[in-house]
Every structure is written in structure tokens, then in C-alpha cells.
């Protein structure tokens, strides 16, 4: 059991570091979710099941849900068509501008 705890603690450190290192925001939210899951197992091993339930429900469930929602709101999850359209419009504007000045 001791070895299992150490493995989990190692995973915890790896997760914590890679949350800040990953470039993709969606990936970091997913890693953060797994961090909470590992933490809840560690709480069980530390004989505090109350905290384990709360950690699993709040940390892995609701916090990540709110993060996902925020990422979706700021269009960080997928490159939506809207943004592409906007970029195209900007390009058109620039072309217009250059032709206008010439």
C-alpha cells in the first residue's frame, strides 16, 4: 500500500507541473481534473473519506465543468467558424484599405 501511495504522489507532482506547462488550455483542464481524481484517492488512503467525496464531486466534477464552460465561451476549445469569418473580414478590410490608398 505504501508503494501505491508513493506512485500516486508521484503522479500528483507530474500532474501539477504539467498543468502549468501544457500549451493547450483544454489539456490543462483535463490534467487538472485527473489531479483532483488522484487527490481524492489519496484522501481515501489517508482515511478521510468525507474529503474524498467532496474532492471528487467539486474538484473533478464541478470545477472542471465550469472551466470547460468558460473555455467554450471564450472560443478556446475549438476554432469556430465565427472566428474564421472574422479573420476573413479583416483580411478583406485590409485589401480594401490597400487598394483605396493606392
Amino acid at each position: 500500500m505504501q508503494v501505491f501511495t508513493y506512485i500516486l504522489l508521484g503522479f500528483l507532482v507530474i500532474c501539477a507541473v504539467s498543468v502549468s506547462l501544457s500549451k493547450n488550455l483544454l489539456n490543462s483542464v483535463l490534467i487538472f481534473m485527473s489531479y483532483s481524481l488522484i487527490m481524492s484517492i489519496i484522501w481515501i488512503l489517508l482515511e478521510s473519506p468525507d474529503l474524498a467525496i467532496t474532492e471528487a464531486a467539486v474538484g473533478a466534477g464541478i470545477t472542471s465543468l465550469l472551466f470547460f464552460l468558460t473555455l467554450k465561451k471564450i472560443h478556446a476549445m475549438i476554432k469556430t467558424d465565427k472566428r474564421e469569418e472574422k479573420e476573413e473580414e479583416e483580411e478583406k478590410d485590409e485589401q480594401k484599405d490597400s487598394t483605396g490608398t493606392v
Partner: protein
Amino acid sequence: MSRKIPQEQYEKTRSYRLKQWLDGSKDLYLGEVEMKPQKPYEETHKQRKKREKEKARAVERVYDTERNAEIRIFRKIYRVFSILFCVFLVLMLLIAVSYLPTIGSADKPANNEVSARYIESGLQETGAVNIVTGMILDYRAFDTLGESHVLFVATCTVLILLRRDEKKRKDGEPAEEEQDFLYEPKDDVILQTVAKILVPPIVIFGIYVILCGHLGPGGGFSGGAIIGAGLILYLNAFGFEKTERFFRASTYKKLSFTALACYTFSKCYSFYTGANHIESVIPLGTPGAILSSGLILVLNICVGVVVAGTMYTFYAMFRKGGY
């Protein structure tokens, strides 16, 4: 017997104005203060080009980031020092952790007369088999009172920040929810089937965790979070029309008000006794039975209701700014 005065006369009375002020139906500044809407700042393409050009020139000529030796040296030193600082911080924290007593050692400072009292006589004094719940909702119920109010205040803040006024929406603009659904499939069959199977067990498990908080691991907060997660899954699968049949903003207001008022009334004596305990008149019952341990069960349900509503409200606010 009171006389009924005509509407015109009634509109001049003080009580009518008070009512208007309470409802917010009359803007107090309207007609009193000079108001001019601010013009939105619009930059023409010429202006933008000019600004960008000037900025580029400033970066190029004044700062000269490419050939400026000072900046280069500063950046190198900055990088080195930031790494050094991080290593120093990690080392300091690790050294501090190494001084902590080991888990379960007998001579650590947490093992004092308080925890001894909790462990020895917690079962007789609170009637809760789960000592943690006995501590949280009986010995330290005053702290949990503040905690649940903090949650309520957090919801109010989210409401202030994220609420969208439907009245202020322009006519052509689609509603927030419709905007949200533009790029994803409506009525996803897989999600709906999974939700149909999963939501009832999740909600029942949440209710179990709340009701058995004094018997086993669990309690109001975790159970409420589980129920909130189940509601969110249901909302995701079936949309706001289905959930609005049983859960609206007014439902949340009533539920959380009732729960918080119930909690506060049962524990507000702490304000007068200085957080001291008062002997409860409610019988504790046999430990291990579901109807035991006095007020703890009621308080667990109150906290659970507040937390479940809060989680759901957070999600609804983030999703479309109201519900």
C-alpha cells in the same frame, strides 16, 4: 374602513413613490440628471495604420530591442533569477514540510485535549456516528453557518457579474442560449440516453450522502455537490426548457432562503452566547439510526439544498447568464 382614493391622487402619495422605488420601476435619475450617451470610439483605418506605424517606429528606434545590450542582459538575468527563485521557494517549502510531524504520530500538536474530547465523548454529546459530521455541524456549527453564507454570497456575486438582462437585448440579436447552440448538435441521442440512465442514480446517491451524513462519510456539502452535478448533466442533455419545469431562479431563491433561514434560526444563539454551546431540547435518539443526533440531520439537509442550488446556478449563470 379605508377609503379607496382615485388613481391620480394615489400616484401623488408618498407610499406610491416608495413602492415605485422598491420595485425599481422608475429611474430616479431620469429627468433629474443631465445624461448624454457616450459616443463609441471608432478608429478609421487611416488612424489605425498611423498608430501602428508610430508604435513600430517607437519600438524600433527608441527601445531598439534587437541591439540594446542592457535589455538583453536584463532578460538573461531575469530568466536566471526566476529559476533560482523558484528553486529556492520549492526548497524552502520542502524543508518546512520535513519539520512536520509524521502522519499518525502521537506527539503532534493536533493531538491535544480538544480532539481527545471530540473522539471520546463525541458520540454521547452529538449522537452522530461520524465524528467529522458531529464536529462540523454540532461543536462547530457556527463555522459552518458562515461557510454556507459565503456560498450564498458567492452566488450573488456571480449573479451580479454574469446576469444578462433579457429586456436589454437588441431585437435582431439571438438569445444567449441560441448563440451557444449554434455550433453543436441539438438533442444529442447518446447524451440523452446516458443522462436518462445516469441522472436518477446520481441524484439518489446525492440524497443518500446528505441523509446519511451523520452515519457515514458524506454530509451536506458533498451530497449537494453531487446533486448539483446530476442536475447539470440533466440540463446539458435536455436543455433549459425541461429543467425550467422544476427549477427556476425563483425556486432557487425560495429554497436557499428557506434553508439558510432554517440554519440561522437554529444556530443564531451562538451570536449571543459567544459561540458557546446550549443544551439542545431535541432528543439525540439511538446512535446509528437515521432519525438521530438531533439537529444534525436537518442542518445537513439545509446545507445540501443550498449547495445543490448554488452549483446549478453557477452553471446556469456561466451558460447563458440567467435561467
